[in-house]
């Protein structure tokens, strides 16, 4: 019985003491994952930056559109106030 116990203990020590091939593979895989995540993060950052710039530009365009809209309403108001509004040809 004592021999069995010693064998079992030795077995456990050997199993956990040496580096298993799985652990090595998993560490490699983890490093790959980390690398991929970093790449993906950079890509998403670039994407966000592009979208931010686009939003900025489009915001200015939206400003212009709203200004035009307001200008049109002002013109309409003025023409109606001065009774110069004519029907479209």
């Amino acid at each position: 019985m004592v021999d069995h116990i010693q064998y079992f203990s030795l077995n456990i020590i050997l199993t956990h003491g040496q580096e298993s091939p799985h652990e090595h593979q998993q560490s490699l895989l983890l490093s790959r994952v980390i690398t991929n995540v970093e790449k993906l993060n950079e890509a998403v950052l670039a994407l966000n930056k592009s979208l931010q710039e686009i939003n900025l530009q489009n915001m200015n365009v939206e400003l212009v559109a709203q200004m035009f809209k307001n200008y049109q309403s002002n013109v309409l108001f003025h023409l109606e106030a001065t009774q110069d509004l004519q029907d479209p040809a």
Partner: protein
Amino acid sequence: MSRANPNSTRTLTLPEELEKLEQSITLTLQEIDRNFSRAHRIVTTSILPVVEQYAKHSEAVWEGSKFWKQFFEASANVSLSGYEDPHNEDHTGLEEDAALSEGDPSYATSQPTRLDDDTENDTIQASMRRAESEGADTDEDDSTLLLSSPSIGNAQSTPRPRHRAAGKENTTMRDVPSPFRKSAAKQKTSDLPSTPGRDVDITASSSPFPMSALQSRVLFSARKGTAHQDPLLHRMLDKTYRIAATPHTARREPKPSAVVTPGLTTKTTLPHWLNDSPDSSPAIAAPQLRAEIFGSPFKSNAQRTPKPTVRTPGVSVMTPGTTRRLSGRDEGTSMRMDPAERTATSRFTGTAKAWDSDSDEDEDGLGISPPKTMQFHVPQSRLLQTPAREASKRIVEDLLFTAGGDITDEIEDDSPSVVRRNHELDDSF
């Protein structure tokens, strides 16, 4: 032997289970790696090119509309710029996209005036809007999706700290309160011709945008309780954009030379923003009759030479400097129009200034004098003692007759308010 059997089964089972678990972990890691590679590939090969193309087209659109933005800004004498609202109180703490994107230097350069004040830099991190928190929720959902497979928890640790660090870095960029109020105060003290009531409603009326739409957006937003000076322009998924209207400084104050001065369209000098595009000039047309009517020959000749003017169409009622413009225009039109029309437009002339010596200072500062309703400071009794009444009556009669108006009957009543203070009158004093 009875004990050996269980021991042997355990020694056999544990390595097997261990081996099985290791294989499972390896397979899962491979799957994770494969998914990340696929995501990276999709982002880089599919999404980014499309976004760049979109950016190119948006750039073209902006190039096309840049002139008109400058046009309207010059006409309103303000500098408009949309900016991202840094104050979003109900932020939950995750600020991935906003924090990262707000570090964009282009954003900062587009808002140079807002960088003056960054007193709240450290407080902003907690301020995000609910939409952003929604975005954070989606991110969390994604995370949970990723985490749905076992032993993936390590994968999320990489990006998170970077996001938070980036968020802290970018707080200086986005937590810059709008200088709109300060600018308004500056504008208040500037030597521009001030219109009564202008400062009161500058916030509401300075924007060239329909307030109704903006207010509806503000009402639509969940955070209407938090007062903000600037009108809300845009509320996207994770960002709130507002409009910062910065009145132009003294450098640009000569631009009000574009302010309406009826009858002076024969002047050749155009505002600089018109020189860039002569195509826009046809829109500038002004009636020439008004100056002849309302300016005394002496005064108008004195004004005409040094002060070229162009009437700017599209003057917004809600823009700063427009109030003066509008009042000037309406003063002119109210004098030109029938009494009925005059009453119709009189509600806009409530801001008319009394004629005083300050007006000359305004003219010196602006190089132009918007038409003003002339009012006599001379008491009626003194006026009757001078020949000015007769002379002014004759002048107004002639002018109105030239203008085609047959309202000589009204001259008796209107002469005190219609007749300008002219040199004859001055001579009498």
